[in-house]
């Protein structure tokens, strides 16, 4: 996430809010990062931390009128998408930037065959003929590892297993050779052995098609092998970001430390207690004035309660939003 002239995507100070009956939800509070061409970025964080909303904003798919992007820039290949026209966005969505949605109902239409859904996207974006699109749809299903694709292309989504549906969604997402694929929890609903198949497949496709990938997940471990860079979100903020090795071997934000300590490994003995993080995440309707993690943080000091910490550089391309040095416990 370095300042890189070749970055395919640059997100700067993006913020999103929702108006609800109970008040304003500050879902995303000024996130910035870059995705260099060909890189994979992992976005992790717990439920409600703003992972999906921040990506829906990139695609300009925030539900209106409740939701609005209140500030920021999303520069894709030199163009600020937040200022693009709706027709301009339609040319980009599903074509140059594709998204695999967290909610599968958003992606596969139950009343059309899988083949037809892929073909339509090809005909719309690439002007393929009917026959070309059909042949390519079969090729794509084959590419994502669906057996007997000539038959499966005629299936409706409900005729496929969960793992197959996920593969079909990936086929649809990569149909037009996107430069950027946003995959929102592409494997969460799947079993471990099927999850391994899907992640392996995404890795292969990424190399074959030279795509950039943003992988969203709540499972920190899942991004370890897949991503070059990782951003950890908490309450709408990116609290730590950097190269994957830095995040896993040299974590600097207390929340990242807490997350890593909360997950048992495969070797730990039963007598080793997990380092559970106490409490629950803050109410997004009433975020505290200071660091959103302070209430649960074992390093917190009075200073943490008054202002949201600024981004601090703690290593090469490694930044955190925290004023305490976790090694010494003192203020930075």
């Amino acid at each position, binding site marked *: 996430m370095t300042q890189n002239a070749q970055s395919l995507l640059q997100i700067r100070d993006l913020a999103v809010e929702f108006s609800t009956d109970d008040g304003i939800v500050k879902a995303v509070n000024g996130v910035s990062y870059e995705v260099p061409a060909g890189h994979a970025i992992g976005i992790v964080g*717990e*439920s409600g931390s703003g992972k999906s909303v921040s990506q829906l904003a990139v695609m300009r798919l925030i539900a209106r009128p409740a939701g609005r992007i209140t500030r920021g820039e999303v520069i894709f290949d030199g163009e600020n998408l937040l200022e693009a026209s709706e027709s301009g966005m339609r040319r980009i969505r599903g074509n140059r930037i594709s998204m695999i949605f967290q909610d599968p109902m958003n992606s596969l239409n139950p009343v059309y065959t899988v083949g037809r859904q892929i073909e339509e996207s090809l005909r719309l974006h690439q002007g393929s003929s009917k026959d070309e699109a059909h042949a390519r749809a079969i090729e794509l299903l*084959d*590419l*994502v*590892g*669906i*057996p007997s694709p000539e038959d499966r292309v005629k299936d409706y989504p409900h005729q496929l*297993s969960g*793992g*197959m549906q996920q593969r079909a969604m990936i086929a649809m997402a990569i149909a037009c050779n996107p430069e950027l694929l946003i995959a929102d929890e592409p494997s969460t609903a799947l*079993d*471990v*052995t*099927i*999850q*391994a*198949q899907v*992640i*392996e*497949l995404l*890795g*292969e496709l990424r190399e074959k098609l030279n795509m950039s990938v943003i992988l969203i997940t*709540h*499972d*920190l*471990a*899942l991004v*370890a*092998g*897949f991503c070059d860079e990782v951003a950890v979100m908490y309450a709408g903020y990116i609290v730590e970001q950097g190269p*994957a*090795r830095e995040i*896993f*071997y040299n974590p600097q934000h207390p929340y990242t430390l*807490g*997350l*890593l*300590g*909360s*997950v*048992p*490994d*495969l*070797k*730990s*003995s*039963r007598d080793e*207690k*997990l*380092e*559970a*993080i*106490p409490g*629950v*995440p803050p109410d997004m309707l009433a975020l505290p004035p200071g660091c959103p993690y302070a209430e649960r943080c074992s390093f917190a000091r009075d200073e943490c309660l008054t202002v949201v910490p600024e981004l601090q550089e703690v290593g090469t391309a490694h930044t955190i939003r925290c004023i305490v040095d976790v090694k010494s416990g003192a203020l930075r």
Partner: protein
Amino acid sequence: MSTASTGSDSDRVDGSETAASRNGALLEVRNLKKYFPVHRGTFIRRISGHVHAVDDVTFKVNPGETLGLVGESGCGKSTTGYSLMHIEEPTSGEVFFEGHDIVQLSVQERRSARRRMQMIFQDPYGSLNPRMTVGQIIEEPLIVHNLYESKADRLSRTQELLELVGLAPYHAARYPHEFSGGQRQRIATARALAVTPTFIVCDEPVSALDVSIQAQIINLLQDLQQDFGVAYLFIAHDLKVVRHISDRVAVMYLGKIVETTVSDELYDRPLHPYTRALLSAVPLPDPDLERKRERIILPGDVPSPINPPSGCNFHPRCPWAQERCSQELPQLETVAPGHEVACHFWKEIEDGGGVPPVSAAIHATSTTPTASPE
């Protein structure tokens, strides 16, 4: 923690007296089967087959220990839990609790046994009655089992239980919807503990929770076990969590237990091909390790439990399968003390270093070669 046994000392003594069955097991499940009929036809409904949800499962749980039950969605974990609790009537098989066959017990004895066996459910949102306050939810089993004379005693017991699971006495007046998922699992745990059980089936108690909250509940369950000596059957699909909390682990595939072993040996010496694949598929928070780890990527999906494959039901996905596997059902075989495995070729596979044969490094289809292990 003397408080928790208020009014029930006599029951616990009674429980441990009978707990000594022939081999000292608290719970013993033998050849348990649960088949669900599958119907066909709209007007004239005929039974066209059966879901073999639990297919001849045998295991035991010792007093105060945790047996983990792990396996993928639909392999029959919950049904095993429901059947042994007699929430679902088993198709066949025996369940011995504290040395007695549950089916043979008199109504009264069964009721008392029921009290010492409790269950915590997977869904923290669906398992608590939304119209009752948290206090009423926890108090209910005390009333049902007639454990305290007076309302005042029940209330003080309710407050104790809330504190025990890390909630506050004032929470008793609130309703479930006012709580987060993790707090609801605490409430469910308090309710299960109310009647001083010796055994609790925990069905995916943390799966619906965020990682940071999961750890709180896992620690709580471990603390309670230490303080009260309660035994758990801990059901989950997350191998890391199961291994961490369990003394022994049973791995289930398509209605059958394929391997049982002590937790440490699960990592050091997995023997069944499915266990090997599961272990290799678990993502680890270690970028360098992840990049050089060799994965066993299983082809295809879990088959339907309606017509399970012949012989070893894992054979269509097994990288090591041979002719014999599709014909002959492997039986559980003891390979070391406390370590059983059901695979014809476990020995050959172990001697071969657990590396899948070359043909297995192929994906679900022949067209997508894996990043092959060099």
